[in-house]
């Protein structure tokens, strides 16, 4: 009895020692996390309940910022713009990336060259590619309208007409889907060939092979790209800011480019309204968290992991 107790105590001591040693080893990261992530997160929550202009001491206002937010038409507008770019941007971009991955997965001569060429635009920084696309999208001389005109389609005034500014960004987004494509490509190459062979023997056509083997097999990757894409899309900022500069403003024509993150930035650094901006950040956090949860909840129904029946 006593001996076992002593042994347990010794074991516990050793285990504690191991724990402390472990903590010591990760202490640089831990300190960084506490100081530069957890503390700012908690502080921003406190600021969201106060009126704070960066310089004077925060004044406690309780839920006032949140109340104001839900009565602020620009909050809803910026949210609408952001949801728009997510729904009409993220999903088509993923579909496009998958399509490209399928093409780049075929055994063609010089496939490595195609893959390289296709991935190159992704290396261009967002600011540079936005400036480049503003040239392409020029209503009178741009290459895009040149092509649209050649096939007899409408030639929109991309950067000026509020109805077309967001579609212009979506269009530009197709150009930067290299990363998603490469990841889909990796997933595609992971699909066991056996499945396809078996399906072919059973007389499955191309479409049904894609529908019943490829899509389920790469569904974990789809889940990953969807969640990451959603988080990024809700923080859409740089491209919108650059495009808006075409009309010498922050939000673009009729605020059609006032994305959530841009409005948040403007509130914080131009209006010096840190409390309000913090509450916007928390609402954004709640929205993204909720949507992510929703995707994960639904994933049981459409995501298949290897080894599962």
């Amino acid at each position, binding site marked *: 009895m006593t001996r076992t107790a002593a042994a347990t105590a010794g074991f516990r001591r050793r285990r504690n020692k191991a724990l402390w040693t472990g903590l010591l080893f990760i202490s640089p990261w831990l300190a960084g996390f506490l100081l530069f992530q957890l503390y700012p997160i908690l502080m921003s929550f406190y600021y969201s309940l106060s009126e704070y202009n*960066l*310089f*004077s001491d925060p004044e406690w206002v309780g839920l006032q910022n949140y109340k104001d937010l839900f009565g602020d038409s620009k909050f809803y507008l910026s949210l609408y713009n952001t949801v728009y770019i997510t729904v009409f941007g993220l999903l088509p971009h993923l579909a496009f990336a998958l399509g490209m991955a399928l093409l780049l997965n075929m055994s063609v001569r010089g496939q490595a060259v195609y893959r390289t060429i296709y991935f190159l635009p992704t290396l261009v920084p967002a600011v540079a590619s936005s400036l480049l696309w503003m040239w392409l999208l020029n209503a009178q*001389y741009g290459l895009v309208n040149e092509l649209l005109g050649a096939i007899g389609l409408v030639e929109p005034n991309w950067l*000026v*007409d509020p109805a077309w500014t967001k579609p212009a960004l979506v269009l530009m987004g197709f150009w930067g889907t290299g990363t998603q494509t490469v990841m889909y490509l990796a997933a595609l190459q992971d699909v066991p060939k056996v499945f396809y062979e078996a399906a072919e023997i059973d007389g499955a056509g191309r479409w049904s092979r894609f529908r019943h083997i490829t899509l389920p097999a790469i569904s974990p990757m789809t889940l990953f790209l969807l969640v990451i894409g959603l988080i990024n899309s809700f923080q859409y900022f740089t491209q919108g800011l650059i495009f808006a500069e075409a009309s*010498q*403003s*922050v939000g673009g024509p009729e605020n059609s480019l006032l994305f959530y993150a841009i409005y948040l930035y403007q509130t914080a650094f131009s*209006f010096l309204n840190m409390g309000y901006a913090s509450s916007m950040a928390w609402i954004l956090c709640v929205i993204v968290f909720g949507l992510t949860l929703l995707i994960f909840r639904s994933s049981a129904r459409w995501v298949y992991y290897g080894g599962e029946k």
Partner: protein
Amino acid sequence: MLASAVGLAGCSDGASKPPEESPARNEATPTSAPKEKVEITFWHVWSDKDAGPITARVEAFNKSQDRITVKVLGNQDATKQLTAISGGNPPDIALTYWNNIGPWGQAGAVLPLTDYLKNGKVDTASFVPAALERMKVNGEYYALPFTFSMASTLMYNKKAFQDAGITKPPETLEELFETAKKLTKRENGEITQIGFIPDYPWIDNVFWPIIFGGSWVDANGKLTANQEANVASIAYQRKFYEEFGMDQIAKFRSGMGQRGTPNDPLLTGKLAMMIGWEYNFPEERKPDGPIGIAPFPHPANRPDLKGSGMVSPRAVFIPKKAKHPDEAWEFMQYLVGHESQVEFSVESKTIPSLLPALDDPKLRGNEKLVMMHDFYERAKSKTLQGFPNSVYINEYLQALTEETEKALKGQATPQEAMDRVVARIQPLADKAASKS
């Protein structure tokens, strides 16, 4: 990083600086007995490419005395300055654009200059009033203007005028409208040349109301954006859209070349007239150049508003938490002083914010600055104005832009649009008043 700018005393256009700054005219003698040596930091907004003239001023100050050494750092935009100031590690003195002074000043980030001005060598009466007024928040000066930009000029394409048989630039706004019509050409119903676009290159929510004698806030803190003059200024702009067509202008505009390039629409004549700032077309507006200049037109029934226009000064301020505010003030007095502003203006073709400096022979007698002479003269105009500085200035300007845009597009009447601005911003003004 800074080394590249050091020693190049802004020789971008060969304007060499006469080697003077004699210690005899030293403007920075310490007010008391000599103290120990101090090093202070000065931040400004210019990138290395354009930092020559300001760096030259700093070096001249460092040479002029041996107590204070100023270290200069460029490329510090508003966000960077704000971050440093709020992080408690600000520069001792900084240069920014005037509209930051209101929010930063009222937030408590900037040192008010009231006490310094009482005992300093700076005579506030010698500044261009409109430029100095921008530095004022709640009746106190938080900064001093170091040169300023000015829009009170009509710039036009001389050839377009000739082709249309126009012999003199319009003097009233009514004439401006008629002249714009004459200068607009269409082919197959599409605009190929346009006389004037009131919101080119941007929706100007300050310039236009000033031209009509408008204002934004009265003595009792009531916002006046919806008063008659301001509304008239928007209705006037709207007339151009009714005349030429919203979609027509938008389509034509999208094909105009980029500003400041050889394809600039004013240079190519696609746009015949525009609101001109002193930094537009400095070379092309010389007497034998393709661009003509004239005072911007005034309303026919308001000849008293001749010479109106807006000013946009650069502001020099001392952050509240600066470690060496006294030495920063010494440097500030030098920087905004006569000699320093004249030298800077010679090198960078800007307008000094001191009235006596506007007549300095170094500017007026300088052939290289011939394109600036008109501007120095117009900078003395009593009818120059600016936007009142306040803690809520950026929200106010943003709201004005948003609602003006709706009015120009015909989605609201000018009156409705301006009423909405006041409804949106008055609560902020009241709140600011209750706090100060």
